[in-house]
């Protein structure tokens, strides 16, 4: 033992002297080799443990005598009252100065110690490699660096404990000072970030124990926890303050700034280990805690952001909410509510526009119906209603544009939000029970009026809008019906560009499938075939060489019954009068019809052609003879005009060819001779006898309405500035349906739906053979989702009907289950 000691002592003396020199920064004159060799020899002689303990003891002593005193001095009563007691009366400047002085003291002690211990560890490399590895003690570096933790940070100062009345350690002061500095920076002061960073690096380099486990860094175990806790308190207060200020816009910007600041702080002053944790503290306290309150703020909340298109606010909001909630629930809900509200607002606005003109009685009645919009509208308001329909569509599209813009500029085209908004759009559009009709009217109006002279881009815009709206409609079969009707009018009256119509239908097909557009395509085909047919017939007549003096030029549309709307085909009239009204054509026309009929059936025997007088039009050349007694002015000459009138108009005018000069015909006489339905006749006569520009018939008495008792005579005095005159055909303008028409449409639609449901039920049952009522209902709804939403009651009724017709039978012993009967 003494031999060992005698070998140990000289070597240790060298090393001890060196340790002192290292601490005093005099290492540059020492030889590393000499010191290394000294420790090497001690270890070779198996005195590693002794060396280890001696070094540790030396360092402990050094700490007590040299390192601690200056630090203890820095922990002045003043510092303690500032940092730990947070006594008022000290200025921020004073607090910062005192705190930073203390931190600088800690920093320099730490830097000295750290550097010294690195050097010592290098010298004792061989000890580390052999003795430490074998004895499983902490490395000499860990053991000596840990002294800083044990003898400085965890040191309690009696003097200070008395001041505080509770035990405390230097670490508490350190953390309190750091947190105070951070709060000062949050309040806008400039602090020494570098110093802070060095202090936190120190805490990252120190561990709870000398085992140096990764998760036991003092930074994590002590500092970070207190930092997060203090920050939580800070932001909780801040959130309350922002809430009191009541400005959501300011809140958004503030929160965004805070998040950025905290990230920045972690990058420059603390540690990136904390970045995510402090971010979630800020998120919880500033975003989540009072989110609802901020969003609901009057005048600056989300409603106001949406209404006033405050895109920047909404962008920030989206970013903030995305941080805390992947489903963006709060944002989504408010967006949806806003879409619904604005959508319903459109309806409200429309309602007040709608009812401004008609009598007050209608309005009261409507109010009594609880907002039911499809009430009887006086016909005089038809144009106004059409305008209202266009306005509704425009408003909806505008709203859609608004939210599309929001989605693009603020919400990063977020799919969750997009689908939520789309859902709300569909919801309010379908809550409005005339949406199908209005959409079709919008298309009608755009294609008829709008597209002349417009560029391809404008056309494209209209088409896109139409498809966008179409996507929202749930009752597509209703839309199909309206579009069919409106399209028929446009085609027959040559009101729109056929290639645009086709393009629109092509897009509908792409969007909704073949079954949806089959009828429209049939209509186009009819139109094309008819064009050829008319030409061929013209050639045929020319070849016959039949020199008919009156030579009537026939342009014919042969329409396939199923493809065209019943209104156009004159089928609605059948229901009104109980029989097909066959109006009496003038003989010349009749001959023409027969000639065409013969021609048509030559190649197509067995077909039936029905003349639909209500859908046609005619150009009639009229000669107004010189009025006797007039020597000057237009009346003194014979006048020739070309009148464009409806087929009915033509028939009526033909009658007057046989009426003596000055004689007149009564309404009844005309009706008897022509057999035109009364309603149509009123319209026809009206167009010929009321507007000054086309008043070729004189009505007795002169009034704005046609009555059954009126008499009509040839207006020999008629003068027009233009040769070609168009008699306004009232029926050709598409207008909003009145209540009865609407009920009629719905009734017809329900009939069609009944058939479609029947077909669906049979299709499903044929395949499944047996099915419960609930399952069957679900499958039917699923199959029909693309076309309309069938009512449960209707499905039930259809099933019952099919049971009666023995397509299905009830399965005995089971409640509400059916079997398919082949």
């Amino acid at each position: 033992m003494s031999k060992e000691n005698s070998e140990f002592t000289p070597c240790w003396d060298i090393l001890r002297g060196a340790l002192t020199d290292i601490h005093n920064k005099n290492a540059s004159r020492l030889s590393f080799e000499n010191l290394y060799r000294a420790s090497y020899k001690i270890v070779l002689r198996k005195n590693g443990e002794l060396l280890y303990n001696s070094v540790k003891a030396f360092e402990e002593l050094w700490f007590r005598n040299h390192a601690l005193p200056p630090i203890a001095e820095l922990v002045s009563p003043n510092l303690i009252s500032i940092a730990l007691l947070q006594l008022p009366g000290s200025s921020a400047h004073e607090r910062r100065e005192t705190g930073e002085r203390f931190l600088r003291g800690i920093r320099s002690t730490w830097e000295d110690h750290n550097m010294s211990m690195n050097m010592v560890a290098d010298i004792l490399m061989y000890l580390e490699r052999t003795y430490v590895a074998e004895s499983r003690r902490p490395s000499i570096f860990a053991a000596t660096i840990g002294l800083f933790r044990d003898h400085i940070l965890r040191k309690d100062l009696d003097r200070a404990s008395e001041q505080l009345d509770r035990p405390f350690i230097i670490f508490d002061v350190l953390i309190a000072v750091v947190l105070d500095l951070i709060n000062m920076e949050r309040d806008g002061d400039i602090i020494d970030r570098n110093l802070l960073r060095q202090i936190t690096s120190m805490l990252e380099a120190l561990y709870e124990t000398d085992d140096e486990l990764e998760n036991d860094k003092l930074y994590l175990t002590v500092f970070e926890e207190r930092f997060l806790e203090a920050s939580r308190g800070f932001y909780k207060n801040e959130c309350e303050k922002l809430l009191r200020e009541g400005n959501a816009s300011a809140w958004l910007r503030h929160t965004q700034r805070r998040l950025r600041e905290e990230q920045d702080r972690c990058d420059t002053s603390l540690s990136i280990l904390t970045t995510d944790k402090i971010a979630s503290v800020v998120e919880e306290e500033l975003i989540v805690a009072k989110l609802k309150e901020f969003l609901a703020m009057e005048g600056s909340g989300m409603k106001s952001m949406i209404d006033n298109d405050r895109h920047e606010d909404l962008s920030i909001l989206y970013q903030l909410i995305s941080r805390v909630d992947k489903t963006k629930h709060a944002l989504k809900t408010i967006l949806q509510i806003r879409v619904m509200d604005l959508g319903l607002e459109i309806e409200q606005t429309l309602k007040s526009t709608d009812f401004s003109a008609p009598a007050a009685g209608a309005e009261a009645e409507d109010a009594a119906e609880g907002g039911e919009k499809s009430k009887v509208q006086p016909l005089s308001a038809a144009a106004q209603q059409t305008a209202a329909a266009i306005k509704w569509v425009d408003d909806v599209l505008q709203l859609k544009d608004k939210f599309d813009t929001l989605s693009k500029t603020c919400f990063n085209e977020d799919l969750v939000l997009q689908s939520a908004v789309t859902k709300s759009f569909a919801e309010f559009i379908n809550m409005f029970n005339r949406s199908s009709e209005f959409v079709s009217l919008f298309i009608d109006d755009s294609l008829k009026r709008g597209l002349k002279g417009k560029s391809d881009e404008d056309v494209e815009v209209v088409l896109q809008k139409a498809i966008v709206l179409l996507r929202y409609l749930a009752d597509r079969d209703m839309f199909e019906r309206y579009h069919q009707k409106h399209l028929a009018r446009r085609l027959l009256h040559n009101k729109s560009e056929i290639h645009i119509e086709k393009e629109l239908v092509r897009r509908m097909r792409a969007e909704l499938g073949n079954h949806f557009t089959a009828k429209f395509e049939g209509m186009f085909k009819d139109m094309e075939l008819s064009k050829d047919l008319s030409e061929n017939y013209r050639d045929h007549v020319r070849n016959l060489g039949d020199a008919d003096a009156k030579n009537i030029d026939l342009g014919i549309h042969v329409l396939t019954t199923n493809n065209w709307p019943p209104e156009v085909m004159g089928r609605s009239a059948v229901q009104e009068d109980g029989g097909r009204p066959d109006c009496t054509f003038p003989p010349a026309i009749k001959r023409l019809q027969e000639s065409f009929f013969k021609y048509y059936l030559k190649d197509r025997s067995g077909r039936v052609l029905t003349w639909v007088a209500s859908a046609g039009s005619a150009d009639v050349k009229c000669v107004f003879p010189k009025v006797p007694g007039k020597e000057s002015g237009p009346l003194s000459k014979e006048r020739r005009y070309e009148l464009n009138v409806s087929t009915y108009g033509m028939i009526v005018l033909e009658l007057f060819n046989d009426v003596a000069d000055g004689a007149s015909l009564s309404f009844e006489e005309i009706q008897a001779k022509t057999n035109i339905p009364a309603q149509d006749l009123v319209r026809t006569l009206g167009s010929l006898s009321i507007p000054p520009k086309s008043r070729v018939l004189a009505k007795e008495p002169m009034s704005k309405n046609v009555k059954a008792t009126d008499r009509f005579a040839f207006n020999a005095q008629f003068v027009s500035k233009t040769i070609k005159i168009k008699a306004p055909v009232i029926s050709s303008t598409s207008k909003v349906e009145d209540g009865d028409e609407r009920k009629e449409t719905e009734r017809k639609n329900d009939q069609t739906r009944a058939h479609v449901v029947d077909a669906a039920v049979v299709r499903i049952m044929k395949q499944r053979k047996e099915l419960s009522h609930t399952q069957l209902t679900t499958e039917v709804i699923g199959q029909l989702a693309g076309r309309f939403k069938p009512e449960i009651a209707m499905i039930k009724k259809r099933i019952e009907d099919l049971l009666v017709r023995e397509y299905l039978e009830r399965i005995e012993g089971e409640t509400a289950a059916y079997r398919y009967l082949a």
Partner: protein
Amino acid sequence: MADSKYITLVSGEGFEFVVLREAALVSPTIKGMLRSQFIEARTGRCTFPEISAHVLEKVVDYFHYWYRTREQEDVPDMEIPPEMCLELLMAAEYFNLDSKNPLRERE
């Protein structure tokens, strides 16, 4: 002072060996010597009073052998005269030239 590319190793007899710094750094001992603020780091000159020239020569050979072959596989063994084995083993211990040495792998 920018570190020179070479350092000088001095044997107990005073023989000097000029070695590529990078090659010599394979020894943790030399590495520690050169990175601290001791006299060796300042001068680039390491003296080993208790190592004789012929052993130090072989050690320097090894440094260069290691440096040449450090990125190769299947390297042939260095030739060691059997009579030097014991001395070289002790030198290896001193220079911490142990392939399993954690100090080497740490760097």
